Structures are given as C-alpha cells and as structure tokens.
C-alpha cells in the first residue's frame, strides 16, 4: 500500500530497544522494545508501507519512522452482545416494572 504527500498516515518507531529498557521494568516488558505510534501528514512525495518516512504531526512536529498505515481507521467498537450483562439488565428492568419483589 502506498501513500502520497499530505496524506494522513501512521508511523511506527522504536524508542528504546529491549536492551535499553529501564532497570525497574518487569521481565516480560524488558524483553520487548518501547514502541511509538503517531499519526500525521506524510512529507515524502510517495512512500510504501514499511518504508522509513517523515510526517508532520498536528502539533507541527516532524517525526520519522516506518510507514505503518495509510488513512488509519478507528476500529474500536461497542463490543459483542454479552448475555451475562443483558440478563442482569433484564432483571433490573423487571424489578422496575414491579414484577420481581422477592429477590433478596
């Protein structure tokens, strides 16, 4: 996938390698790098995902890193239907309607 100058993109860069992690971090965290993801506008004329590029962020900083996504979408959502939660809610609605007086 490619991006052109001025397009909204996400880059990725390693801030600290596994060997550079702070002494205080737990073992599992020490084994992985500290990574940064940041979004902004591509400054190169044309780049491919995976290439090292520079962006201008909304605050006006220039940051370089590997191009990771082009026009990234926000994909977090409302989640699945959770039966355990709906059952609980339905019990409460039943109480409100006066249909459940014996729950203690």
């Amino acid at each position, binding site marked *: 996938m490619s991006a052109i100058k001025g397009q909204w993109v996400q880059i990725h860069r390693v801030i600290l390698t596994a060997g550079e992690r702070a002494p205080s971090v737990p073992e599992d965290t020490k084994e992985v790098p*500290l990574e940064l993801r940041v979004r902004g506008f591509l400054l190169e004329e044309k780049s491919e995902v995976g290439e090292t590029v520079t962006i201008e962020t909304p605050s006006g*900083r220039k940051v370089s890193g590997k191009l990771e996504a082009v026009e990234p979408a926000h994909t977090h*959502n409302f989640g699945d239907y959770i039966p355990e939660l709906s059952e609980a809610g339905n019990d*409460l609605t039943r109480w409100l309607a006066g249909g459940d007086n014996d729950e203690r």
Partner: protein
Amino acid sequence: MKDRSYEAVMARRKEIMKASVGVDYERYELDGIAFDYERLMKDTSYPIAAIRRIQSETGVGNTPLIELKNITRLVRSISKSGYGARIFLKDEATNPSGSFKDRRASVSVSRAKELGYKGVIAATSGNYGAAVASQSMKRALKCIVVQECYDSRGRGQPEILEKARACEAYGAEVAQLSVGPELFYYFLLLLEETGFFNASLYTPYAIAGIESLGYEIVEQSNTLIGRNPDYVLATHAGGGNLTGTARGLLRAGADKTKVIGVSVDLSGLHMASDRDFNRKSFTTGHTGFGIPFAVLPDRSDVPRNAARALRYMDRYLLVTQGEVFYVTEMLARLEGLQRGPAGNTSLTAAIALARELPEDKTIVVQETEYTGAGKLPSAQLTFARENGIEIVRGDPIIMDSPGKRIAIPESYSQIAYKEVDVNDLRRSYIRQLMKQGAALIDSDFDFLSAELKTTATKVRELVKEVSNDVDSERR
C-alpha cells in the same frame, strides 16, 4: 544537540520540569522531609471565584446533581427497616469533553496561555487527554497527548483507543506508546523538543480545578436537601479527584462531610507488565494507581504532587470490575443514564454503603463520565474475553480474580465493598519514607500529621510500629 539517551534525559528531569510547569517547587521545601503544601497551593492556585470564572469561559462545571431515586428504592428493598441512604450523582459527563477532567484541564490550560506557552503536553491514557485537547483548542493552543496504549503485539485497550480518537477529533497530536514507565522519558523528550507547558495531572492548577466540584456539591446539596451531604464518594487513582473534591468541600465549609475513596481492585496485576496490560478492563480508578499514589504521592511527574489523598481520605473502599459493569447497567436501566463504566466506580461502593446507613443520611457520588465505542461494559467484556479472561455470573466477592475472571453479580444484593484500613495505608506511607532512608526530625511530625490526617501522637505510634517492622525485616 543534547544527549537523547534514557540516562541523559532522566538526569535533566528537574530542569525540564521547571521550565515546563512554571512553578519553582524548591521555594516550598522545608527542613527534614516536609514541604509547605498549603503555601504551594495558595501561591500557585486561584481563589474559588477565579477558578469558576476560568471554567465558565470554556463551559466547564455547573453540572447537575441528580437524586438516584430508583436505585435508592432498590437499595431500601434489601436493607433492614429504616435503612438505605439517599444517593445523589454529580453528572460530570455533561462537561465539554465528557468528564470531570475538564475541570483539571481548564485551569492548567488557562495558566499555560497566561504564561505564554504555545502548547501543552499531557501524559495520560484516560479522560484527561480528551479534556486537555478540548480545553487547548478553546484557548487556541497546540496539544500533544502521550498515551500508554498498546502491548507488544500492538493490541490497544478499547477505552484508550477511544480516548485517542477523541483527542484526534479535537485536533491534538496523539503519541501512542507501548507498555512501560519509560513513557515518562519520551514525555520529557517532547517537553524539551517543543517547549510546551506540562499539563500534569499533579500540579496545583490541576487540583485547584477540581475544587469547584466539591464546592458545587455543597451548594447543590444545600439547595436540594437543605444541608451538607454526610458522605462524598470519589473514585481514587492518582489522588487528584479525591484531593480536589475534598478541598472544595472544605472551602465551602463542609468540614463534617466524610470523604471516601473508592478504587477497582486489581491486586495481583503488575501495571508495567506487557502481559498484564490487556488483562484488565479498567485503565484507571484502580488499586494499581490508587495504593502507590496514596502511600507515595511524590512518585508523580512533578517534584511535589499536589494530589495528596491521605490528607483528606476518611475511608478507602474497593469494588470489583464485574460489580462496576453491573452498576453501569443498573444506572442505564433504572435511572435512564448511560454513562462510562470507569466513572461508576464510586457509585458501586455507594450502593453497598447506602444499605448500612439510615434513610436520612445522604451520599453524593461525585462523578460520571461519557460513554461510547470502547467505553462500554460490552466493549470491555468483549476485549476481556479475547484476552482469555473468563466472564461468569456469580458473587463477585468470592468469584472475582483480577486478570483471570470477571464475575457479574447474580443479584444487586451481591454488591459489596472490601475496606482497606486507612491506618495500613498510613503505615505504608511511613514505610516508603523509611525505605528512602528518611531520618525524621521534630517538625516532620507536624507535616506527617497533616499528610496522614491524624494526630502527631498517632504518627509517632505508627512510626514506631513501622520502625520495629523494618528492624525485624533487617534481622
């Protein structure tokens, strides 16, 4: 060009901080371990009228206080005769970016503007990011929000992703880091690179901004019920929410109102662990922040933390993740208020507490937060399941196991709290001091008496107990 290595940047921490918060903390240091907290707050903060003026300029505050009549009725249906306190809720979700954090951000950002900074930076994965972004735009400042967001597999907590979306929507830059306390290192680098203001959650401004919340509670409570509330429950993480609210209550003269901190119990999960990071459903308001910040407030990103929970906390209660999800459902079903789960932490404890109190007592729950994609029980529980967490119906006090199992109560009668003895927190505070090798001088005992909300005699007792423990550990 300055050395950007971890060690070099951390070594420049003091000077970077001084340049970025506009407070000379050293002026407030006293002999021994003490510093003049009240003078720091007085010099660098504002009177309540000024705080409210600043907040009214950006539409912050004056949120409704709503009586939860159906929930109170539900509580009374399972309480002994004559019991079941009235519960009121301060609907902070009606602030511009959807949480009480707008109060904190409003004063910080206003100060940044006044001091001539071109932009602000905040390190936060929570609602505070959206609040700082929103307030910055209103004051025409640039804004960077630094989040701890992803684990090493690139999976982001839905709630944090939602916060990133919100910040972006306001036009802020969002720097998303993977798990680890070295976020602070990158934060320092950014402060140095940009020369922006550090909109820390822990400056006097960020605390002063919440004082209006406590103040409003007293005013509204007097209008609604003709007196001050008996209890105010505040969700406790870094300590600012509780500190600012309590200071506001005192400013309004409510010195008999009991202030109770509430956190979600996440004991056993390591906050800096890459593996544990996505095994929790609450990104703040939990014991992973609540306990460390209560017992060692100066662990924050400024030299002296203005959020000092033990100065104001009368009791500290813990609830489980499953209970808070249940109560979030309850608030929607019984009161017609759909709000974010994390903001309902203290409401959960309020329901359990109300059962123990006579009908004529009043409890104010001092916050709600906005809800939406990522910030819903269904989104959090879906994510929990994807990360191997078991979700069951059952008694949360027995079944809950942070990082392994979430128990949604089978009935509202199962909503309960676990109490942390505040004296244990006071002992831990003293233990932290001793670990740092502090040798206490006479004047320190007055400072500690204020820090720990107890008498100087009690402080001496606690210090003696802790010293004996520390000595026997050494033997």
